[in-house]
């Protein structure tokens, strides 16, 4: 059990430190690397509590797709050279004190909220739902998503469709005067249309008119 605790604390420490590093790191590319590290340690935490499916999905979706996409965007936009000036600008920006004040207030509010939760004695007993150990995580997730929450699952499909339509509407431009390849035309071309055989007489050459 003590090994479990040690591993847990190591992963949580890495997760928190790398989350902080994402925001304070001066180089944007480094930020993205820390983000990936953060995701990986969180997925390790998931696996430790026995939610192996969530952990793997976390790896595949967040690390494999989202973070790599971020990395591409950061590199392509060439913002790597731009320094993260949030913590360097001396007194010029008025956002930081205000932001800090707001976050401190929210922090104390959260302490009140979590305190109320923590010291409500009967809460932990009442949410102890019986866990069916015969089913794997994937099976039980699947049975919930595709039966109890099927309408939400379908709705998320609609949300993704709207996102796709939106991305196309806002970025797709029909440019005029672009020469396009027409495969059908290319394939259906006959040999006769493209090649003309001419007898070239000696010392005379041929006259080619297009």
């Amino acid at each position, binding site marked *: 059990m003590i090994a479990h605790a040690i591993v847990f604390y190591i992963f949580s420490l890495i997760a928190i430190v790398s989350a902080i590093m994402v925001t304070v790191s001066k180089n944007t590319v480094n930020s993205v690397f820390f983000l990936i590290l953060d995701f990986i340690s969180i997925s390790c935490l998931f696996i430790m509590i026995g939610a192996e499916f969530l952990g793997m999905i976390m790896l595949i979706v967040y690390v494999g797709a989202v973070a790599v996409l971020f990395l591409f965007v950061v590199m392509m936009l060439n913002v790597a050279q731009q320094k993260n000036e949030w913590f360097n600008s001396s007194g010029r920006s008025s956002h930081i004190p205000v932001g800090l004040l707001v976050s401190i207030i929210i922090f104390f*509010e959260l302490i009140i*909220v979590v305190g109320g*939760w923590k010291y409500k004695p009967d809460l932990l007993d009442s949410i102890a739902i019986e866990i069916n150990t015969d089913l794997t995580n994937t099976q039980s997730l699947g049975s919930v998503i595709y039966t109890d929450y099927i*309408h939400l699952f379908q*709705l998320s499909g609609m949300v993704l*469709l*709207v996102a796709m*339509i939106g991305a196309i*509407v806002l970025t797709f431009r029909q440019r005029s005067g672009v020469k396009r390849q027409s495969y059908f035309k290319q394939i259906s071309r006959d040999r006769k249309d493209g090649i003309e055989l001419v007898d070239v007489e000696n010392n005379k050459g041929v006259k080619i008119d297009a």
Partner: protein
Amino acid sequence: MENLQLIIPELFISIMIMFLLIFGVFKKNSSQLVYNLTTVSLVAALALIINLEAQIQSSLFNNSYNIDSLARFMKILLILSGIFVMLSSSKYIQISKISKIEYPILILCSILGMMVMISSNDLIVFYMGLELQSLALYVLASFNRDNLLSTESGLKYFVLSALSSGLLLYGCSLIYGFSETTNFNQIMVNTKEIEYGLTFGIVFILVGLAFKISAVPFHMWAPDVYQGSPTSVTVFFALLPKIAALTVFIRFLYIPFYELGDQWQMIIIFLSIASMVFGAVAAIGQKNLKRLIAYSSISHMGYALAGLSTGTTQGVQSSITYITIYLVMNLAFFSCLFMLKRNDEYYENIDDLSGLSKNHPLLSLSLLVVLFSLAGIPPLAGFFAKFYIFVAVINEKMYFLAIVGLLATVIAAFYYLRIIKIIYFDPEKEKFESKHNLGLKFTLVASTFFILAYFIYPSGIVDIISQININ
């Protein structure tokens, strides 16, 4: 699943979205056809909703999706305003060169999201509906992407709306943490005592909802978005999301947290007073009609919230009546706005209305009726709307709210009357075009007639609304 027939309207709209998308992609230059088909499918959806048995009260998907009288009425209202918005703005989108197949499809997606919101009886379902409708609205706001104002409004709406969605989700998670469920009815059962976390959750969710109906102090996006987005989208913004958000307001306050009324009542009263006063005062200095109507709608939402703050069935019914009449008035106003066209250009400043009465007596007359009604002058529909609200508020002995509301009406009357003065007494300008398409004319005539004739038979709508029971 024999009660799957209850969500046939939603299923129909989703199928139409996918069908029209494929149809529009494979048929070249079909944007106008897709637009008309969308209108037709909205009419069909309306028929399907009306066809559902009245007074049916049932819920689907583990009680997370409610089909009751409230949902039915609000959906009919929603689809009807959708149809009229489509009818009135068809010419506008052609002329302003935003006639693409995606435009009506995004409108359908947004309406689908709103229908889900209206029927939601669960925090997750509500959130999914909200995201679906606002995601489509972000794109619609910046649909005229070559226009700087339009892109600005889309981006502004996106950033602020994402922030408010974040707060809302945080509130949902707090409520889930303290009540152990996301279902509205179940939340009511599980929360008998007041806890800090629950109050925080309610506040966060109310912030998110207040953002959606642009109540002060979460209104900052409204004037810019209303002005920047294409007018056809502005009508949509001014009408439909308000219906959905108000329904969620009603459900959220009156089903799970009815017992905790003293926790949220002060918040709603504050939102209401702030919106009424701010909307009235800030509209005075506006020069753009779309900005003006944005502030006017902020003020109107204040009155609708005043009805909700009473905590009585009468108050809720007065709010529903208010939003119904508000929709008709705004529809009439925007139809007038669509008629201010000269040489394929639309005019939207107050100065452009100068001396309108000399060239266009009929248009000015209907604008006069609409503005008087918005100001709440009897015997027009707008007066009755405010009247019901004040009766409900005074019955609960909330005199302060009623007095502030009345004062705000007086302030608001100033800027409505100023427009009328400009129309009737200022020097005339060049003529506007007087040929308009049939849908626009029909919308204007129908809505103006409703406003004018409402006082003859006011109980017609009141009777329908009084049959709506919330619990």
